[in-house]
């Protein structure tokens, strides 16, 4: 019976440690739920698909573009509003609209804990092109 205080203290410590994520999140202001500070394109108002779709499925769209363009040779994308786009991550996505990829894709990916996609190891973004120009 003399072990009771010891056991109780151990239990409290254990429960406290196990629930760290919960109360740490509640106490820390920085991890409060706010939208990531992404920078939207200045001139364009409409993406190649509705915003809600892009938010949830842009990776699917990019992959579909890739497979269709490279494997089936279908390089034109007809958007929901009837506009036609090249299925080209450089010209259509990055040089025309999201000129600062780090401030748009990067900030949200950082926020969501998504590792930077490897597309830009090969596909040129505007910075790469201007850096290498003479």
């Amino acid at each position: 019976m003399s072990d009771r205080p010891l056991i109780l203290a151990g239990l409290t410590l254990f429960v406290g440690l196990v629930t760290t994520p919960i109360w740490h999140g509640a106490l820390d202001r920085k991890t409060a739920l706010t939208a990531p500070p992404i920078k939207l394109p200045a001139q364009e108002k409409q993406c190649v698909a509705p915003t809600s779709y892009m938010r949830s499925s842009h990776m699917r769209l990019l992959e579909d573009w890739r497979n269709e363009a490279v494997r089936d040779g279908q390089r034109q994308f007809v958007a929901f509003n009837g506009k036609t786009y090249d299925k080209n991550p450089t010209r259509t996505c990055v040089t025309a609209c999201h000129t600062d990829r780090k401030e748009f894709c990067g900030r949200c990916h950082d926020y969501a804990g998504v590792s930077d996609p490897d597309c830009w190891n090969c596909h040129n973004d505007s910075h790469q092109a201007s850096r290498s120009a003479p």
Partner: protein
Amino acid sequence: MKITRKDFLRLSGLGLLALAGKKAVRAVGERSFASSSPPKKRVRWGMAIDLQKCRQKDGCDRCIKACHSTHNVPQFADRAHEIKWIWKEPFKNVFPAAQTGYTREFFGDLPVLLLCNHCDDPPCQDVCPVDATWKRDNGVVTIDFHRCIGCRYCMAACPYGARSFNWQDPRPAIAMVNPDFPTRTRGVVEKCNFCEERLARGQGPACAESCEEKAIVSGDLEKPDSEVRQVLRSRFAVQRKPELGTGPSVYYIV
């Protein structure tokens, strides 16, 4: 229930008749469907390289430069890291069997322009474990760089040495990046793509377009009146290692 022998025979006979009837109906249906769609036309891009015209200007490498700047091909000083899309090799190495002791005197060291042969039956396609390289409907053998895992089986299978491996990041070795064509990364195999991205826009291959002597003629080998077929009809042309049965689409007018 009891079935007599007579009933059994009658029933099986009826069953067989019904089966035969179904087969007949399906065969008729298929025939009428097939005749309504025209046979698919085959396209096979190919090239004829006139070596005499190619030699006209000594040391000319316009086509090589045009290809390399179009496709962001890196230039490494170390030959072990060389990335080859289109390059030159002495005649005696390219056509070892197509010369005699006397012709070697003249021909042996003359440069021959080399590139991927875009074979009719490409061995690289057969060995690729991930389907990253394949022959398109238009005869061009391409690589899906997204799928390539860098195993280099295709390099071993290619009898023409047309494929190169990226041992290091190619970007620092590209003098000026063409933003319209993606570079590659370390760990993928690459080669000439017959300017497949230009063909899609209705343009011809960059090497052929850049040649002032018009030494490179490209076109559809399946179309009897295409320019390349006319050239091949009027001049004697050879392929590299035709005995292997790969069916190269690049012809050399010697």
